[in-house]
């Protein structure tokens, strides 16, 4: 199992090579992998339906308890089937939709990588590997939304989707870590068994809120719903796959997966029901504002995601069954509808439904698929969507908060039915209109997906018993205990059926007056404009402003400001640590001989004079005096090698400076007295700190030095009598090699700067161009 998923990533890397061999047919070749996975998963169906959970152990980082163990129970099997099944269809569909696109290779690489990340996400048992796959889906989604990277809108939307989902991902990471701490395990399998412990834990609320932030951003719940419709900038196969059938359901998946561990508390119920219902209504309501078919479908996806969250919030057995059924039904009809939308866009050259009409004669198959899928979306008998809607009504009817949830569900159903009618009827009936392109029936590759998905919607509608096993298994893993499910198309005349009829009638009425409804909504436009998306943009602008402000403040281009800032931080942090953490042991025993004091005094005087003198030559000379005094100090205190080196280098330095100095400007007095005082204070503070540090360092001996080893082994191991030399060329020979490199680089730099002049290049260039150069 792990082999197949990880192998998929490898296959994605080899997709460019496959393109060289198979050209346009690469999509079919790549579809073999999800196809094989689909068949294998179908083979596991009986075992899982029987109530077993398949575990595929695989260690990853044993020291950190991170595993790549995969878990196959009802919930993950349902998701895995959808991912691999729709994945096959999307790959084939894309080979028609993106036919001849120059970036088809890139598409194949990313979508295959996404497919595998998504499979990893729903199969992972370990929290860390789940998070890794979660983030991988965010990244691949970003790359796919921004697929048309020359389009500014696409890039903006991609970035928005990334920021929202990855921002939520951060919260999710915190939540997962807290969850692991509270439950004392990184394994989902173990955590779901520790519900009592987790729900009673002090960290329960923080865990819940962090996880909800992650799940809600990913699944486009209110108020993060805005990124999903914008993600429609992606090519339609991507919208069909990522942004309706699979990725956006990852958040819902996570909530469902953790529902046995965290669900059932008042907080869980309140948050999920409230946000779910709000998202459901927002999505259904905003869908009807749009005439762009993809946006309309995207908002209806938002509505569906809200419904799923709501069902998880209700949490009854009935709701679990409704959850599983609705999830399956939605993926089938929404996948089909998006593919239909892609065909319409591809064949007519526009995404605007208001411009389409009467297409059923030229595109009969597409029209049929659209009608079947739209009927399922609207929840009309005898489609699978109807079964799901009945269960939804039943769950809302029986669950808590009925007075609030039932009307909300009904309103959403009415609006959804209108949306379904708009998508399923509007483009295909009525009179033909002028279109940017002369429409034809879509190619076979693009029809395969909608036909199969719409066919499944119909088949499962007529024979819902076929899905019973899978639905029951899914509901059991969400509920944490075995749940029996019996799906019927006809439940007899009861409450949910009446609600269905009401929604059907009102929905059709709304469809007839769609244009008027849109006009009536126009006054609300300013409110919608000021929605959460405006907040997102304000946040982004603020981010840029803060960045600019702090760059202006910190990176202002004045060298001395950088220096002052660094020094003050150094003095501040080191000083605080020195005084607050350590007792000052100041060794003040003065054991100084006269000649030593004279040498040191001369050295200090040389340094001070270098600052005070106004003539360049005199300043250099007094630096030289200081340098020679340092050399003397080295000699006086048992460091003859240092003395010799310092003497040589100091001589060279003075010569170099005197040679170069005449080409440099004279000292200029540029700063005001106030600035000089400020600099003096900074300099004195740093100098004082250094003095204190040395006094502290020489009076304490925190750990034994490694020098003893070098002193003892210099002759026996290094065969040298001068220990300093042995250290340099033997014990620390690599350091010396590095030093030689530095010197060589400096020498090359000096040579290059002295040898080449910018002016020479210009002259040479102009000569090469044949211009007359006058010196």
């Amino acid at each position, binding site marked *: 199992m792990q082999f197949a998923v990880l192998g998929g990533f490898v296959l994605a890397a080899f997709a460019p090579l496959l393109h060289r061999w198979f050209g346009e047919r690469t999509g079919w070749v790549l579809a073999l992998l999800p196809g094989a996975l689909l068949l294998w998963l179908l083979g596991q169906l009986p075992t899982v339906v029987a109530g077993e959970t398949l575990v595929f152990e695989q260690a990853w980082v044993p020291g950190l308890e991170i595993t790549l163990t995969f878990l196959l129970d009802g919930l993950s099997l349902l998701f895995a089937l959808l991912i691999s099944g729709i994945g096959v269809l999307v790959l084939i569909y894309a080979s028609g939709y993106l036919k001849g696109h120059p970036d088809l290779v890139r598409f194949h690489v990313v979508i295959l990588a996404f497919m595998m990340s998504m499979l990893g996400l729903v199969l992972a048992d370990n929290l860390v590997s789940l998070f890794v796959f979660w983030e991988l889906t965010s990244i691949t989604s970003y790359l796919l939304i921004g697929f048309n990277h020359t389009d500014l809108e696409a890039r903006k939307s991609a970035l928005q989707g990334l920021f929202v989902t990855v921002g939520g991902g951060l919260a999710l990471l915190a939540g997962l870590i807290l969850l692991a701490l509270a439950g004392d395990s990184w394994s989902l399998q173990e955590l779901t068994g520790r519900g009592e412990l987790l729900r009673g834990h002090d960290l329960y609320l923080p865990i819940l809120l962090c996880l909800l932030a992650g799940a809600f951003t990913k699944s486009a719940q209110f108020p993060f719903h805005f990124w999903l419709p914008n993600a429609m900038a992606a090519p339609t196969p991507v919208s069909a796959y990522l942004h309706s059938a699979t990725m956006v359901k990852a958040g819902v998946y996570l909530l469902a997966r953790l529902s046995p561990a965290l669900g059932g508390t008042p907080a869980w119920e309140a948050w999920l029901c409230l946000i779910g219902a709000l998202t459901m209504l927002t999505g259904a309501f905003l869908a009807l504002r749009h005439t762009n078919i993809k946006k309309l479908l995207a908002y209806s996806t938002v509505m569906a995601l809200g419904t799923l969250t709501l069902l998880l919030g209700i949490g009854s057995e009935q709701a679990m069954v409704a959850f599983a059924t609705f999830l399956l039904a939605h993926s089938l009809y929404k996948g089909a509808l998006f593919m239909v939308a892609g065909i319409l866009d591809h064949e007519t050259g526009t995404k605007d439904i208001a411009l389409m009409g009467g297409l059923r004669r030229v595109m009969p198959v597409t029209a049929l698929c659209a009608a079947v899928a739209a009927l399922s979306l609207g929840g009309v008998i005898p489609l699978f969507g109807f079964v799901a809607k009945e269960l939804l009504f039943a769950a809302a009817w029986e669950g808590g908060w009925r007075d609030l949830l039932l009307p909300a569900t009904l309103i959403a159903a009415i609006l959804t039915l209108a949306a379904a009618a708009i998508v399923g009827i509007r483009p295909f009936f009525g009179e033909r209109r002028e279109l940017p392109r002369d429409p034809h029936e879509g190619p076979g590759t693009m029809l395969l997906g909608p036909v199969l998905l719409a066919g499944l919607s119909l088949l499962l509608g007529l024979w819902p018993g076929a899905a019973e096993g899978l639905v029951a298994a899914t509901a059991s893993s969400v509920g944490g205990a075995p749940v029996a499910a019996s799906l019927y198309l006809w439940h007899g005349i009861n409450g949910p059926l009446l609600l269905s009829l009401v929604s059907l009638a009102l929905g059709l009425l709304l469809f007839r007056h769609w244009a008027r409804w849109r006009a009536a909504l126009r006054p609300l436009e300013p409110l919608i404009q000021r929605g959460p998306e405006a907040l997102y943009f304000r946040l982004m602008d603020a981010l840029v402003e803060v960045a600019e402000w702090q760059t202006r403040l910190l990176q202002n*281009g*004045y060298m*001395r400001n950088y*220096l002052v800032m660094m020094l003050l931080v150094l003095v501040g942090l080191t000083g605080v640590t020195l005084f607050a953490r350590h007792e000052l042991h100041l060794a003040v025993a*003065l*054991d*100084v001989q006269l000649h*030593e004091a004279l040498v*040191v005094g001369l*050295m200090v005087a040389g*340094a001070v004079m*270098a*600052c005070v003198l106004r003539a360049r030559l005199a*300043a*250099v000379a007094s630096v030289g005096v200081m340098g020679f005094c*340092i050399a003397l*100090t080295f000699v006086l*205190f*048992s*460091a003859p*090698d*240092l003395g010799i080196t*310092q003497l040589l*280098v100091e001589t060279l*330095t003075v010569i170099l*400076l005197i040679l*170069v100095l005449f*080409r*440099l*400007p004279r000292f*200029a007095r*540029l*700063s005001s007295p106030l600035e000089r005082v400020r600099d*003096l204070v900074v*300099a004195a503070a*740093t*100098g*004082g700190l*250094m*003095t*204190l540090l*040395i*006094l502290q360092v*020489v009076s304490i001996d925190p750990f034994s*030095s*490694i*020098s003893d080893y070098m*002193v003892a082994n*210099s*002759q026996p191991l290094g065969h*040298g*009598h*001068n220990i*300093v030399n042995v250290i*340099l060329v033997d014990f620390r020979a690599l*350091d*010396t090699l590095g*030093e030689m490199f530095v010197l060589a680089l*400096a020498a090359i730099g*000096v040579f290059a700067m002295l040898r080449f002049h910018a002016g020479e290049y210009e002259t040479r260039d102009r000569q090469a161009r044949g211009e007359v150069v006058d010196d």
Partner: protein
Amino acid sequence: MEPLMALAIGILYATAIYMMLRRSIVKLVIGLMLLSNAANLLIFASAGMRRGAPPLVPEGATAPLGLVADPLPQALVLTAIVIAFGVLSFAVVLIRRAYEIVKADDLDQMKDTDT
């Protein structure tokens, strides 16, 4: 000896930083020289200073007789002196070229990347 040396090093650091904070680029070079010398002395002095006991092994012996000065900081300082010279010569030449091109000896006039 160390307290006196600590004081001297503190003064050296202060002069170095004062010079590096000046706007004149030539003063910056002098500040750089002072700073590298101060840093060398810092390393040298923090290991403790010992008179007349250079870290040498007498002929025929396998280890020094009695206590000697710590050889490790000496080796570090030796490397540092040489590298400081490399850096200084590079800086001096760089500043000379910059002055040739920009014709400004004021660091404040060099704060933008385009001259």
